[in-house]
Each structure stands twice: as structure tokens, then as C-alpha cells.
């Protein structure tokens, strides 16, 4: 069945709300407005204002309250409009949610799910276009997910809610309108990366909003007779090192595609894992395609130049292959 990414998220939330009375959704404009990205449209009518809870503009307050509610026995889904605004809630996420289980000697796990949009590409300029998944993926105590397909958008929420620890889910804003086939079995293993395309010549490793671009780059490469394997990390913490090592073991070459800024990026971490685990498998230095190190500019041509794009991925792959 054809479904949009947005619809898949809505279905996942509806199912969770119907299945478990402890689950509720809160965030800015999730109710009456229907959700900034319309993911929660219709849920207010179905589940009422107690469980589809509009919050004031108080990111620190309602994310922190989500942690408290989780401690108190609820299973909150907290929606933060975008990762940009989540910086106002970094403190409760990092200092409380992520640390509490350990800091309390195992007494206080935090079964919380935080969803947020991420990424650039819509000319929203520097304060609305961040990709800071790596900041969260840096922090022990939380799981970080990035659904890049309709199936994962549908399938990630249930295991995230079942996780006894905090889970942060990044939805790339460019993906909401994406339509795709929703498979019969959309269940998702939130421990494992996924191979989205097989190929023996080179591994293209990516996640989130860069997956469609990377798959397109693989098509271009195929036209040149290069068989690229595309790996969707989808679990950004803890990283699935085994899948990364396996693909590089097969292809001996890799390019990492990451919308985050290059310095200190997730791409850097993936490269480090490859060096640690696959050094002797490599036939060439690993390359990466990241965002240019500039606050994302408004003008279309500058924004495009700042972000990973298909031609850059293709060029990087050619470079690694010495072509």
C-alpha cells in the first residue's frame, strides 16, 4: 500500500495511543493546529486533549515534564518542533533523561520518546535548518533513531516506546511528503542498520534525509558500471558497527554521506569505526560528503551548495574508486 512518511508516523502514533493508555503525545501545536508537519492531524479528535496535549512554547518545561511523566509511569511521546528548538531542551535530555538511570544506581530508568524534525533543504536559513543528530548520538544513556523510509517511519515508534530508556527520533523535514510502499511487515529492529541496496564495488553509508540522495547517487554510479551498496544507519546510537564492518568487508571502499557539518560529525565516527574494525580490508582511504561548515544560508543556490548533493556523492565515490 502506498503511504506517505507523514501518514506512517501518524499511523504509528495512533496505534500506540490505542494500544496503551499510558501513551500520550505532547508538544507545540500537536492538537488544534494538527502538528507543525501535520503528523498528528486528527489525533485530537480521536484521543482528546488529555492525551493529545498542546503545550505552550516552553521546550525546557515540557520535555522535562515528559521525563517526569515517564518516571511517574506514563509513556510520553514528546514532539519538539525541530532539532533547532530542542537546544532549549538539551539540558533535561542530556543532564536528566540520559543520566538518570546511571546516576541513580539503576533505580530510575526514563522510558521517554522524543520526536523532532531535523535538516535543511527548504530555504529556512540558519535557525531552522540544523542537523544535530550527532550531538545526541554523542550522549550515553539514550538511543537515537533516524527513520529514512516509510516503513521505518511506521515501524520505529513501537519498539522505541517499548525501550526502557529514552529514545530520540529524528524525522528529516524533507521526508514527510515522501511516498513509498508500506510493506506488510513494517516492524523495525531498532538495533540494526539496514542495507538498502546491494553492490560489491563501494559502500555508501548514510542515514535520514540523505538516504534518497545516496540511493540516487547509486543509480548514477550503476549507469557507469559501478555497483554501490547503500547502508542506512537508521540507529545513530548505539551504532551498528557489525553492519558497517560487514559492508566494508565486502566492498573494501566507503563513502559516508551525512548532512551534519563535517567537524565532529557522525560521519567522522563512522570513519573511526571503519578504521578500528576494517583497516586491513580497505583498498582506499574512506571519504565523506558532509555539509559545508557554514550556518545554512537562505538563498537557494547557496543552501544547495552547502548540503550534500547527488553529484558530490557520485564524485566522492569516483574519487575513492580512483576513477
Amino acid at each position, binding site marked *: 500500500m502506498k503511504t506517505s512518511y507523514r501518514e506512517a508516523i501518524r499511523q504509528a502514533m495512533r496505534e500506540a495511543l490505542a494500544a496503551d493508555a499510558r501513551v500520550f503525545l505532547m508538544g507545540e501545536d500537536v492538537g488544534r*493546529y494538527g502538528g507543525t508537519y501535520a503528523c498528528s492531524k486528527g489525533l485530537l479528535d480521536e484521543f482528546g486533549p488529555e492525551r493529545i496535549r498542546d503545550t*505552550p*512554547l516552553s521546550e525546557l518545561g515540557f520535555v522535562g515534564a515528559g521525563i517526569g511523566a515517564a518516571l511517574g509511569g506514563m509513556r510520553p511521546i514528546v514532539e519538539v518542533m525541530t532539532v533547532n528548538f530542542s537546544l532549549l531542551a538539551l539540558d533535561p535530555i542530556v543532564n536528566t533523561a540520559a543520566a538518570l538511570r546511571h546516576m541513580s544506581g539503576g533505580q530510575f530508568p526514563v522510558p521517554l520518546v522524543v520526536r523532532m524534525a531535523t535538516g535543511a533543504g527548504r*530555504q529556512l536559513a540558519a*535557525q531552522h535548518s540544523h542537523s544535530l543528530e550527532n550531538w545526541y548520538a554523542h550522549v550515553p544513556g539514550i538511543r537515537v533513531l533516524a527513520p529514512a523510509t516509510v516503513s521505518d517511519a511506521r515501524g520505529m515508534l513501537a519498539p522505541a516506546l517499548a525501550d526502557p530508556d529514552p529514545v530520540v527520533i529524528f524525522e528529516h523535514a524533507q521526508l514527510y511528503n515522501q511516498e513509498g510502499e508500506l510493506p506488510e511487515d513494517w516492524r523495525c529492529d531498532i538495533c540494526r542498520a539496514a542495507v538498502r541496496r546491494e553492490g560489491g564495488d563501494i559502500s555508501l553509508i548514510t542515514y535520514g534525509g540523505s538516504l534518497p540522495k545516496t540511493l540516487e547517487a547509486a543509480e548514477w554510479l550503476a549507469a557507469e558500471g559501478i555497483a554501490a551498496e547503500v547502508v542506512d544507519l537508521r540507529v545513530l546510537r548505539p551504532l551498528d558497527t557489525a553492519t558497517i564492518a560487514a559492508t566494508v568487508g565486502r566492498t573494501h571502499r566507503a563513502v559516508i554521506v551525512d548532512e551534519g557539518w563535517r567537524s565532529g560529525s557522525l560521519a567522522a565516527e563512522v570513519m573511526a569505526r571503519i578504521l578500528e574494525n576494517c583497516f586491513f580490508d580497505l583498498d582506499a582511504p574512506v571519504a565523506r560528503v558532509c555539509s559545508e*561548515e557554514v550556518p545554512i544560508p*537562505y538563498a537557494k543556490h*547557496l543552501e544547495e551548495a552547502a548540503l550534500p548533493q547527488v553529484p558530490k556523492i557520485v564524485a566522492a565515490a569516483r574519487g575513492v574508486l580512483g576513477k
Partner: protein
Amino acid sequence: MIAPPPSGPVPWDKHFAQELLFDMLRIRRMEEKCAELYGAQKIRGFLHLYIGEEACAVGALHALTPEDAIVATYREHGHALVRGVPMNAIMAEMFGKSAGCSRGRGGSMHLFDAAARFYGGNAIVGGGLPLAAGLALADRMQGRQRVTACVFGEGAMAEGAFHESMNLAALWRLPVLFCCENNLYAMGTALGRSESQTDLCAKAGSYGVPAQKADGMDVVAVHEAMKAAAHQVREGLGPFFLELQTYRFRAHSMFDPELYRDKAEVEQWKRRGPIHTFSARLKAEGKLTEGEFLALDARANAQVQAAVEFAEAAAWEPVEDLLRDVVAPT
């Protein structure tokens, strides 16, 4: 209950009154054109129109001096324009051209102009408030008698940044004029659904900051209130909180389906529209003729037309310059 349209005498001479009317018209016509250009995909990203709220920016900013500073939000086209940022530079910015007031880097939400002491253009709700406190602190520490006016929506009053900034400003008696444009909705969230205390002046007053409200649809009321407030702040009496009660006639942004308010409410507020009510008052007092109104409107439209032509013709920033202005050149 929606109040009756603003009325009563206009305590200004014809010249000043028409100047303010002209500024309101400039904002209105510019933004109507922006909406059109958005449809034509010349302007992209988020576009937050100020239509309906013009009396706030015009009344308030005309009460400041060129030495004062303005900190605004993503709904700041009107403030930038009244502050003297050239319309050409604003339009070019929205087109993403390098002749724009932020070199095409900011777009609609991030208009800046150092010469006008216009500090933008902040798209993080509440983000401007601490900045304003800091600008005022710098003035205080350097012995300058200037006002920093900080404009924000009532939605920002739920953010920690509001409370922390109010407290700091009050504690240190900083020369900040907090100017809340209360248009009753933060995106789709009505005031009563976001604030436990909907009397915003009571809320601000709890910090020991003098607080006052004014009819934000009435350019006269806004201007008089702002003038008095700015005087007090400039005299070193500490921060002031002014609530301008207003309404946005258009959607929150170009993506908003407006599920949260009914058309009848919008229509009722339109009867309080700042431009037609002010014009009517001026006409009744013999300070404006229909001919003069049409001439002002035509002038505003001509400026808009010229700005669009300027923006169309302006050059794109070369892609090689992508990394400029990230840090100081070495």
C-alpha cells in the same frame, strides 16, 4: 469580546499623522506583494506576514530615536521598514540576492541592518529577549542614554528566556523596553491555552517592571504609550513592559491551514483594521482627503514596484563566497 474600532481625536498635526499612515501603507503593500511573490516562488522559506498589526511597528518605532536599538522576531518586515531599512534591501533579501540587507543569507526571518541599529530578525521564539538585555547592559556600562526596544509575540512569554530576561533587566535596572505584540495566537495556540495568567501585564509586573497595555490596532494609542515608556526607560528608571493588543489577519505563515480560529473572528478584527480606522479618523478631522489617501497609497505601491524591480535585477552571490562571514576574515 472584541472592542469597537479605535476612535477619538488624533493629537497630531496633519504632516506627522500622514507620515505614520504612509508607513502603515508601505508595510501593507509590501507584504501583499510578498504574498504574491511567494506564490510565484520568488520568495521561499518561511514568510510570516504582519498584515493587521502595522500600527504596532509604526506607532512604536516612531517613538524611538536613531540611537536606540531594535531587536525583533521572524515577523519583522514592518519593523525593519519603519526603522529605515530600505525597502529595496528588504525585498532583495527575500529574493536571496547579495544586495539584500543580510546578503541573501537570512531571508524573510533574518533582516538585519547595523546602520539602523536593527538587530534582526530572530527566529527562535524568545531568542531576542536576552540579547536585548545585553545590548541595554552595554549601554548602561558605557554610560549611554539609549533605549533597546525588544519586540516579541505573546507566545514568547511562555519561554524561560522571557522570565530570565525580565528578571535580569529588572534586577539590574536595564534600559530595555519590552514590547509584546499580543496577537492572541502563537501559531495555532490561543493565549488562554498557553498562559496560566492571561493578563500579560500582571505577569510582567510580577518582576517589579512597570507594565501597561495599549490598543495595538490604534497607531495613536501605540505611539503615545511607547513615547511615555521610552522616556521613562531613557531616564534610567529601568525596564518597561508594553503590551500591544493586536491581531494578525493572515495565517501564521504560508503553510498554516488555520484550523484553530474561525473566519467570523478574523472578520470582526478586520473591522478594527489599523489603516482604514486611522484614515477615517483623519478624514473626519480634516487631516486627510480621499485624494491624499490615494496619493499616499500610490506612492507606497510605487516603492514596492521599484523594490521588486531592484530585487529582480540584483545579482546572486557567487557560490564561491559560500563560506564568507562565518568568522572574521584572516
